[in-house]
């Protein structure tokens, strides 16, 4: 193989490399042919996923204790609660925000329980 050979081959294939094939309904045909079910997540993957979640939570808690996160959080919450009545925020209504947060959390938990799977 000489350099010239490589140049010839490269020239021939360079155009093919740049060619983008138009979809022309291909994706639509694929989507229509998909089955309703997919292979379930294996037990092994679920166990690994749970172990990984447990590991991350453990690391998080360890750092929290190491850097006295609880004291810091307690101070912030205390300051926030004590100074809350002094805020003059007529544009903000806390009740709807609280309701939205509760509903969103409930929906998230429902979705998680409904699928019966851990996020991977």
């Amino acid at each position, binding site marked *: 193989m000489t350099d010239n050979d490589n140049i010839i*081959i490269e020239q021939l294939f360079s155009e093919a490399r740049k060619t983008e094939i138009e979809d022309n309904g291909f994706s639509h045909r694929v989507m229509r042919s998909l*089955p309703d079910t*997919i*292979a379930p997540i294996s037990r092994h993957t679920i166990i690994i996923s749970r172990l990984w979640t447990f590991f991350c939570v453990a690391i998080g808690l360890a750092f929290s204790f190491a850097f006295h996160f609880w004291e810091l959080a307690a101070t912030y919450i205390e300051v926030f609660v004590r100074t809350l009545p002094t805020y003059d925020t007529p544009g903000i209504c806390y009740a709807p925000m609280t309701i939205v947060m509760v509903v969103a959390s409930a929906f998230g938990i429902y979705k998680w329980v409904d699928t019966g799977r851990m996020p*991977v």
Partner: protein
Amino acid sequence: MDKLNDITLVTQVAVLHDKRAFDRLVRKYQSPVRRFFLSHTLGNVQLSDDLAQDTFVKAYVNITKFRGLSSFQTWLFRIAYNVFYDYTRTHHVSDDIDTAVATRPDTASTDSNLKMDIYDALARLKTVERSCITLQLIDGQPIDKIAEITGMPLNTVKSHLSRGKEKLATYLKNNGYDR
């Protein structure tokens, strides 16, 4: 970033069974997958589309088996490679040059964007050589990814690439490409 986006879409499909997320993956990768099959079937558009469709259906059904150790594209090409080899086994496709050229569809049914010269040249190669050459020269995959896709050792891939390129160079020179 692109890899992260693919993993997000795959997670949506695997966990939430979100078909719209899979549709985005199909639209993104339909061109390289169909191009891969066009090179292997020497320009047979109908067969390429059937094999590409089979590839995406298999990817969808087995999407929970995607570990994210390689990119989604590499995983998809591995499925495409296996789909093609299953096809050659069940249909007893030969490496014989004369058979390959004779069974090639006429120009009207092939993708006009790809030059027939490429298919003529690729027809001179064995199927494994064609796979390696196609993955490197058309799909731009590095050698380690080709080894991952084909399941062959790195040195075997290098040998196939070297032999394939020698055959291509000889064919092209015999057909006046070096002038």
